[in-house]
């Protein structure tokens, strides 16, 4: 499994798009031949990905939003990103 560092900058590769799904409700990540339906938390996390700020910055921002211990958020976010990198719908810049 690819380890994600807080200093890493992640981005959605070309061919992967985040979009609202009005008909079904919620947000989806559209990728080659696949659709990932995101829950509220996943959507909040993925929508922070802009190809500019670091994973650490994203974690800091989410700490404010969720008022949860940084350690736990860091763990969840890096695991989620690693999973998406594995599926090739996220890349480390």
């Amino acid at each position, binding site marked *: 499994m690819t380890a994600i560092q807080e200093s890493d900058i992640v981005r959605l*590769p070309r061919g992967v798009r985040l979009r609202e799904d009005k*008909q*079904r409700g919620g947000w989806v990540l*559209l990728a*080659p*031949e696949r*659709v990932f339906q995101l829950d509220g938390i996943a959507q909040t996390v993925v929508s922070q990905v802009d190809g500019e700020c670091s994973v650490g910055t994203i974690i800091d921002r989410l700490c404010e939003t969720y008022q949860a211990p940084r350690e736990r958020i860091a763990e969840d976010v890096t695991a989620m990103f690693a999973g998406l990198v594995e*599926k*090739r719908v996220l890349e480390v810049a």
Partner: protein
Amino acid sequence: MTHSQAYDVQPPMGMLAELTHRCPLQCPYCSNPVALERRRQELDTATWQRVFAEAAELGVLQVHLSGGEPALRPDLPELVTACVDAGLYSNLITAGVNIDRPRLETLADAGLDHVQLSFQGATPEVTDHVANMTGAHARKRAFAAEVTDIGLPLTLNAVIHRANLHQIDEFVDLAVELGARRLEIAHAQYYGWALVNRAALMPSREQVMEAVERVEAARERLQGRLVIDAVVPDYHARLPKPCMNGWGRQSLNVTPSGKVLPCHAAETIPHLEFWNVADHGLREIWYDSPAFNAYRGTDWMPETCQSCERKEIDWGGCRCQALMLTGDATQMDPVCEKSPYHDEVQTLAVRDASGASEFTYRRFARTTESA
């Protein structure tokens, strides 16, 4: 919603748009019907544009621009634009022998999201033989290089059968070498032209097992570098595949002339009534057309499926295959080991695996008019 359906119908996620049945290649496993639709029957640009808008409105997220060879439509860039305008994810499914650099750039600039390129073999000998086109392999390689050079994401698609099953490792190497993000290894599905050629395509059980192992090994070896999706071989299996993830549940297919089908082989079920986009809106077709409602949900299923815990996992398997192999489209897919026809299918697979290797190539039937 106004439809009067006991089963809770969800909007579709994906649409396969068969823009044309014309193709420079002649693959003997082509999933197009044996009676190919002709150029003069094809929908015009404005109708496809309307269909894409209606699809997005209905809930479709991804459109697969397919064929035949979709690039034979001169209006392909306009059709990509129509998808983009409607917010649809556009995927071009191509054989990659007739798109030059300027055209590809036009498609990319129009907002095309992804390219899926077929390889009939992993080497020139096999590709050119299976596609029945000299030089096809070299053209495909050149096209793949243009795709990745422009920066579009690329998937390689390999349909696997007895004549190329030994090339799994080479397909994997080819995908990595050409910079593909994904590789699809799909065992031939026996309807359309593949049914005509079943005896020349069917692998033996041992070959299938070896192929499955090789795919698994490659997957592990290339984790994070190449996504490998495999469509499992059918006749040698014990459980059916969840064909289309259920009839009329997630996707629809529009033929070149505008008929809307629950799957691309659905026309092999003769008594079904398909509606055309020329006569009905896509929403009406999805919710109310007889063909889509025929095998939705689980009510139509035979008793064995009704009381099976897999009924909402595989949805009873493939309807077209059930009809073809048992004569009854409401039978469970005979690939299922609970089917009374299961042994017959296994015997048939063994017999065909040692059949003659001559291909009947895909082509338009001869008529006095040209295609």
